[in-house]
C-alpha cells in the first residue's frame, strides 16, 4: 500500500507545521508553518484519492492550492502593514486586542 507512508508523511508534516506555528514568534515563519500544514492536508487528500482511485482527491488538492495562494496574498499584505506600524515582526507584540 502506497497510501500509508504518504499518510504518515502527511501527519509528520502537519505536526511539524503545528509545532512551528506554536513555537515561532516571527510572523513570517508562522506563515511558513501554516503553508506546511496546508500542504500536509493536501498530501493526505492525494493519498486518499490514490487509495480509492477517485479523482476527488486531486480536485481537493487544486482547491487547497488556490486557497493557499489566496491566503498568502492576504497574509503578506497584513504582514507588510504590521511591520510598517509596529516596526517588528514579533507576533507577541501585537496583543492590543485582549479582553
Amino acid at each position: 500500500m502506497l497510501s500509508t507512508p504518504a499518510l504518515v508523511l502527511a501527519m509528520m508534516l502537519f505536526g511539524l507545521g503545528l509545532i512551528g506555528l506554536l513555537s515561532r514568534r516571527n510572523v513570517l515563519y508562522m506563515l511558513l508553518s501554516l503553508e506546511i500544514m496546508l500542504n500536509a492536508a493536501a498530501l493526505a487528500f492525494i493519498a486518499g484519492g490514490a487509495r480509492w482511485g477517485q479523482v476527488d482527491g486531486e480536485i481537493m488538492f487544486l482547491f487547497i492550492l488556490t486557497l493557499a495562494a489566496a491566503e498568502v496574498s492576504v497574509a503578506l499584505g497584513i504582514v507588510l502593514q504590521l511591520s510598517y506600524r509596529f516596526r517588528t515582526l514579533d507576533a507577541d507584540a501585537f496583543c492590543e486586542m485582549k479582553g
Partner: protein
Amino acid sequence: MLSLLWLIPALPLAGFLLLALCGGRLTRPQIAWVGCGSVGTAAVTTALVATDFFRVFPERESYQQTLWNWIDTSGMTVGISWYLDALSLLMVAVITGIGFLIHLYSAEYMADDDGYARFFAYMNLFVSAMLTLVLADNLLLLYLGWEGVGLCSYLLIGFWYREPEYGAAAQKAFIVTRIGDTAFAVGLFILFTQFKSLSIQQVQSLATESWPVGSDLAIIVAVLFLIGAVGKSAQLPLQVWLPDAMAGPTPVSALIHAATMVTAGVYLIARMHHLFALAPLVQEVIAVLGLATLLLAATSALVQHDIKRVLAYSTMSQIGYMFLALGVGAWSAALFHFLTHSCFKALLFLAAGSVIHSLHHEQDIFKMGGLRRHLPWTFWTFLIGAAAMSGVPLVTSGFYSKDWILWSVWSSPISHRWIWFGALFGAMLTGLYSFRLIFRVFLGEVRTQPTGESGLAMRVPLVVLAFLALTVGFLEMPHTLGNVTVFSQYLSHALPTTEVLPGIDESSEVREQLAVTVAALLGIGLAALLFLPGSMVASRWTDQSTDHSSMTLVQAGWGFDRLYDRLFVRPWFSLTRHSGDMLDRGYEWLAVCVESCHGWMSHTQTGHVRWYAATIAVGTLMLLGLFAL
C-alpha cells in the same frame, strides 16, 4: 353562489388592508367609498349566499367550506373553514347589514376628523373579525375572531388617543375582557385535551356522547365558556368596561353595541348550546346573572347624565335579557331579541350621535332640551328607537321580542317566578329610562342651540333603522296575536326548541302579555310624570340636584369600579411597589454570576495569536477524541 361564503369576511379585511396600507394617499371620498363599499359588498354577498342557502338547503341544515389548513401538526388539524347554518347566517346578516348602515353614517359623522382612513380601517377590521367569529367552523378560528374583536374595540375606544382618559378607557375594556378571554381559552384547551378536536360540531357531539348531564368536566368547561361570554357581553361581574367604552366616537359605540362585540357572548352560548345543555346548573347561573345585570344596569341608566352612558347601561340591560332567555333555554327568543335589539340600539346610538353632532359634542342631557323642532328627523327616529326599546305594545319590535322572552321565563320548566317578576320590573325600568331621555333631550326649553339637522348620509341609516325597529318584530308573533312563527321556524334546525311547562294554557299567556304591556306603559307614564317638563314632580326634581350619596353610588354603576379598584388594582400596585425585592434578589444573583463568569472567561482573550492557535489545536484534538470514543 354558496361558494362565495369566504368573501363575506374577506371583503372587509381587504378594505382594512387597503385603507391601512395606502389610506394616506386616498382622498376622503375615496376612503369613504372603500370603507363603506367593502362592508356593503359583504352585505350584498350575504344576501346572495342566503338566497342560495335557502334554495339548496330547504331544511336549513348547514354548509361547510374549507379554504386551507391553517395548522397541521401531528394530532391537531385546524382549518380556515367556515360553517354556515341558520344561526350564523342570522348573525352575518345583522353584522353586515347594520354594519353597513353604521359605516354609511360614519362617512358623514367623522368627516372632519383627522384620522378618517384610520377610523374606517379599524371599523372594517372590526366587522371582519366579528364575521370570522360567527362563521368559524372550529373553536380556534372562533377564538381568532374573538381576539380580533377585542383588539379592534381597544383601537376604536381609544381612537382619540390624545386624551389620556380615553386611552385609559380603552385599556380598561381590553384588560377586563381579557379576563374572560383567558377563561375561554382554558375551556378550549380542556375540550381539546378531552376530544383531540376543535371543530365546534364534532366537539359538541362527542361531549354529548361521553359526558353525562351534570358531570364535573361539562360544568367546568361551561363555566369557563360562560366567563368568556360574560366578559365580552359586559355582564355581571365583568360589566365595568362598557360604560367607559363610550370614550370612542359614537358610530363605534353603535357598532360595538348593535352588531359586533357585545353580542359575541350571546352567540357563543347559543353556538355551544349542546355543551350548556349538559350543565343545567350553569344555565341557571346564566339566567340569574342576566337578571342581576339587567336590573343593575337599568337602575344605573336611570340616573346618568351622559346620553351615551344611558344608552350603554341600556345595552347592558338588554343583553341581560338575552342572557336570561339563554339561561331558561329559550334560545330562539334570545336570538330574536338580539335581532330587534341590534336594530333599535343602532338606531338609538346613531340618533344620539346626530344630537351630539349638532350640539358641538355636548353629551350632558341636562344641557339639552327642546330639540324636537330643530331636529325633527332625529326626534322621530329616536322616539321610535326608545319606544322599541321600552316595548310599546303591538307596533314595535321590542315588544314582541321582550314579550317572547318573558313568556319563556314564565313558562319554562327551569325558571322561577321571582325571576319573571324581576324581569318584569326591568321592563318597567326600561320604559322609564328610555323616555327620560326623550323628555329631557327633545322636549322643554332649548338649553344649547343646535346647528341644525345633519345631512343625507346620516339621515338615511336613521330612517332605515327606524323602519326595521318597527317591523322586524312581525317576524315572530305570539299565537294570541296573529301566531306568526317565521323566526322560530327559521332557527328550528340550528337551535333546540323552547320547552314549555305542561299545563300552561292560552289564558295565562294573555295575562302574562297584559302584565308586560302594563309594565312598559307604566314605565313610560312614570317617566312622563317625573321628567316631562311642566309636570309638578319634574319642576320639584330639577331644583334638587342628584348628588345624594346613594345617587352617586347608583350613578357609578353600583360602585363596581371602586370595589375592583380596592380589591385588585390597589393591592397589586402596592405589591409591586414593596415586596418585589424578594423576587429581584434571585435575578440579581443571576446577573452577578454571569458577570463574574464573564470576567473569568475574558482572561482567555490574551490577544496573542499563538495562544489562539494552540487553543484551536487543543479544541480540535478534543473533538476528534470525542468522535473517536
